[in-house]
């Protein structure tokens, strides 16, 4: 099977869901990304990305219980699937490999 491609923003969202563990749903993911990365993301972008990730099989979702504060509407909680975890670790691995293969002088120039 062709390896599923993971876009940069998808990666961010997928990671955020993984960070939030049990409490990942639209609002928390949006806020978390805003706080952690400092970039203003639209809710709609987050929402469609969550859906796309679910289509690709990296996320699974489940409707939670109703709460009073949101007009009695339920939340959809997202969880990272095995495929999602695998994709994340693959991405991480590739990044690390790339970092590792940087020549030392370039590394020094980058100040790290």
């Amino acid at each position, binding site marked *: 099977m062709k390896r599923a491609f993971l876009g940069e923003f998808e990666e961010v969202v997928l990671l955020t869901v993984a960070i939030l563990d049990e409490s990942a749903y639209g609002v928390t993911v949006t806020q978390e990304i805003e706080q952690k990365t400092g970039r203003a993301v*639209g809710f709609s972008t987050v929402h469609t990305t969550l859906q796309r990730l679910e289509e690709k099989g990296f996320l699974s979702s489940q409707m939670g219980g109703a709460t009073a504060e949101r*007009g009695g*509407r*339920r939340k959809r909680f997202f969880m990272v699937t095995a495929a999602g975890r695998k994709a994340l670790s693959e991405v991480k691995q590739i990044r690390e490999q790339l970092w590792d293969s940087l020549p030392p002088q370039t590394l020094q120039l980058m100040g790290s």
Partner: protein
Amino acid sequence: MTNPPRWANWLLETFGHPDTREEVQGDLLELYDYWIETIGERKARWRYSLSVLKLMRPLATRKQADDYSPPFFGSPSMIRNYLKIALRNLVKNKAYSFINIGGLAMGMTVAMLIGLWIYDELSFDKYFQNYDRIAKVMQNGTFNGEVFHGEYNPAPMGQELRTVYADDFTHVIMSSWTRDHILSYGDNKFTKTGNYLSADAPDMLTLKMLSGTRSGLKDPSSILLSESVAQALFGTSDPVGKLMKIDNKLDVKVTGVYEDFPYNTEFRDMKFMAPWDLYASSEAWVKRAQDNVEWGNFSWQVLAQIAPNSSFEAVSDKIKNIRLKHNPETAFIKPKVYLQPMSKWHLYSGWDKSGNLDGRIQYVWLFGIIGVFVLLLACINFMNLSTARSEKRAKEVGIRKAVGSVRSQLISQFFSESLLVVAFAFVLSIVLALLILPLFNEVADKQIGILWTNPVFWLCGIGFSVLTGLIAGSYPALYLSSFQAVKVLKGTFRVGRFASIPRQVLVVVQFTVSVTLIIGTIIVFRQIEHAKSRPVGYERSGLITVSMNTPELHQHYNTLRDELIRTGAVVDMSTSSAPTTDLNSQNSGFDWVGKDPNFKDNFGTIAVTHDFGKTVGWQFVQGRDFSRQFPSDSSGMVLNETAVRYMGVKDPVGKQIKWNGKPYRVVGVIKDMLMASPFEPVFQTVYMLDYGWASVINIKLNLSRSTSESLAKIEAVFRKFNPGSPFDYRFIDQQYALKFAAEERIGKLASVFAILAIFISSLGLFGLASFVAEQRTKEIGVRKVLGASVLNVWSLLSKDFVLLVIISFGIATPIAYYFLHSWLQKYEYRTEMSWWIFAISGLGALAITLLTVSYQSIKAALINPVKSLRSE
């Protein structure tokens, strides 16, 4: 705590995806509260609305991950797929594709050519910027109960309109008629057609000047040349300011060169323009008519451009009584002056018997209808063949459905197949049209090209193609795709008993059109032949006419004649006031014993010289020709038979006729000489001796010598007596043949279209027959095994088609009869519609049908039944 914008909620509820609506709304509400706290209410509302807009369904879809949905049928890869399959199908059935594409392309080509022809007709004279404000001044009257229209005007008309009705006109132009004139510059001499016009004519006609100015005609000894004439006379050198001569006598200076008028204008033959003032001052009779304000001499045309704020009707109404005012004695014909707008000159140049405008517009309609029908025939073929073929594909539909095609995909498949065929046909038809156009232009006397840059042309072409493709593909696409896969594959599927009925109806329509066109073509040609073979009452062969255009010819007439006859190339020579193919002068004011005083007479009048009768070969019924032996013949008259009938006089020879008080004596009666239209009855005409009124020289060649040698000899003599003029002669045969040009053009075009229609129809039949034969292969096999002969099978398959053709013939006959009967009514001298024309057309169509069908049916009948039955 405020609520988010209500309209945004409504949008989300209406257009959001139903599967995610609940959680999305919940999330948004939660975020809204959060935004109000962090960034304030105004920004929160703004963000909320923006998010809602972005979350509407087309922008944010949610697919069911566990539910397979077929790819969108309009996706590029699917379209590529459809086209690939369509192309493979076309290549697989080469004969079928050829018939389909070829037939359709042919129909489209015909329609395209006709469309271009109609476009050209409709765009006539639109070249002129003031097109919608220019008119011809005309008049009508009633004479002997019939309304006649005339475009001849008296010389003072222009002045009257210019001064008395100054507010109604922007320009009033006096114009001579477009005639041959000799233009010379040094040794360069050409006979060219042109007009004498008032000085502001170039402005009214919005001439496109290449050099010089539009006001060039204000100088009374100037001339404006068209580009082509300027090139002929002056070559590459600049003509402006050069001195040249008109008709060897008028010295003029070139003051401008204008772009030639396009072919589809009424003034296309106006190759030069000279000032009216020069004309009036050089021609004594014109000067007389203008200076003496002669309202009785109708010899010129008057063109006018009306003022911007008025209408043709209003101005016509104002000027209608001008003629009555100046010629009160014409009150009995109720003369009325009016304006004929430029937009009607070309298509509505005549009037029918009930006084309605008439003319070429009839042919525009006729060809338009033919074009539509030929195209229809081609489309019918296409539809018939695609439906016939598609039934064979029922199994394919079944299998496709069984493996998971949805209906929308099948529909797209069939539509893309028919659209592909139409697209091929359209491209092919443009190529065909390009190839045929030169020939078509020659037959139709046009200069048409494909309108590459005209968006309407492409819009029509492509729009029509798409429409045809959709209609033709609709049956297989919509009907076949509805089959239930199980039934088709189980073999219980049968195309209904009546499935072939629409096809049969279409075949009948096709053949009705074809048979009608055949009958029409035959009758048009018979009408032309009928008029051509009409006795003309004189001898045309070897008769030529030369225009008597210079004073030298008049002065040396007798020596010229003697010398010409001495060459042996000329049998006889005479002059007359009109060539034998033209009756250009009519007069009234004749009086004879026994004439009813209330009878308003009108005779054609021709002045001839002594030898005219011998030159043209008059045939005398009574009396004798003019003769030099009788000096009294100078007041003699020769009548034609119609004139005698018209006068109601018995034995007219020797009787006296007065014309404007002057007595004449009838010396002879000739058989009718056909001088005007070969479709009209011969006009009552009188011939008189008059050497002064000559405008043409008639020469009878010695037929026993070679024509080219004779002409060379004659030219030498003319050069001697008439130096400075090119020797231009016309053969009467050819001039006479020109009278049929319009009818012949129509006939040729109609026959081409008829042949194409028949061809397209038989192409369709061929395809249908092959389909039927193929469909019934097994049946034929069984029949043959049981002992049917080839003849049996042949008649079995041909029978149906023959029946259809007979039905079409039955429908076509009355339709053709009706239309051709009314067409023939236009002509006084017309052919009969004999029954055999109809019979021949019907038999012809039948023969073509049998020929077409037989190939397929015999082929089917000869197949070895072992082969066709083996699979069962």
